[in-house]
């Protein structure tokens, strides 16, 4: 539940679910999360970093999993975005992290995604990034963006 105190940056936590394979709606949760962060009046660059990371992760659920949940938690000094999906999982994370590596389908590529830059992009924009995965079960990402003024 959103904290309703008059603090500039209240503690906040909420979870949003994402449906795999639903390309028309892909990105909706990220837009929503970006809107929430904007309302908190966080620095522009912080919101931008968090939004990009969330969007890449959401696209990966849509592309590679049946479903997933994105949890946004915000406190005084950082944004934590936890993404847990039930999907095919990633057999070799080091390989998946490499720029250009992708198992995307033609359909995904036609939409301009699937160039194998998503995880690399998350790694670049998040201040801290952790990924674990189990083949046949699912994947979990924890992405942290520090809230520093003027960043």
């Amino acid at each position, binding site marked *: 539940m959103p904290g309703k105190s008059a603090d500039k940056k209240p503690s906040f936590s909420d979870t949003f679910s994402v449906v795999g394979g639903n*390309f*028309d709606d*892909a*990105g*909706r949760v*990220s*837009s929503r999360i*970006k809107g929430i962060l904007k309302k908190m009046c966080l620095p*522009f660059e912080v919101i*931008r970093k968090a*939004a*990009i990371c969330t*969007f*890449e992760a959401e696209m990966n659920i849509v592309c590679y999993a049946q479903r997933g949940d994105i949890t946004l938690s915000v406190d005084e000094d950082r944004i934590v975005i936890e993404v847990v999906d039930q999907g095919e999982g990633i057999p070799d994370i080091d390989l998946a992290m490499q*720029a250009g590596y992708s198992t995307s389908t033609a359909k995904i590529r036609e*939409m*301009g*995604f*699937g*160039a*194998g*830059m*998503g995880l*690399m*992009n998350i*790694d*670049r924009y998040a201040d801290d990034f952790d990924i674990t995965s189990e083949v046949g079960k699912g994947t979990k990402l924890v992405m942290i963006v520090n809230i520093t003024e003027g960043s």
Partner: protein
Amino acid sequence: MKLSEVQQILDAEVVVGQDQMQKDVYTAFGADLMSDVLAFARPGTMLLTGLTNPQVIRTSEILDIAAIIIVRGKVPPPETIKLAEELNIPILRTRYILFETAGRLYRWGIVGCVDKVDAGKKRG
């Protein structure tokens, strides 16, 4: 440069955002890969692309893209237009190819825009 001037230079049709033609733009980013846009485009830039699916609008929203210029005369589908209207992101449509579009804008002083964060920064 105002979006209205961009419209003239590109002989473009305003698909969404007629009310935003006074917006100022200085930079452009050309790509058919949203992955690329996500990796390198800076906020406030124009996106020149041949893609027309709703994800282009989502990507633009996430990155605070100032306007989308759809090239090659492609017609965006209704779901794309609807989302752009909802999120208030202008779409212009030109029949020029991306090369010509970039060339014309470049000649009028628009410059490229790239986020220069280098990839290996954190992990060294």
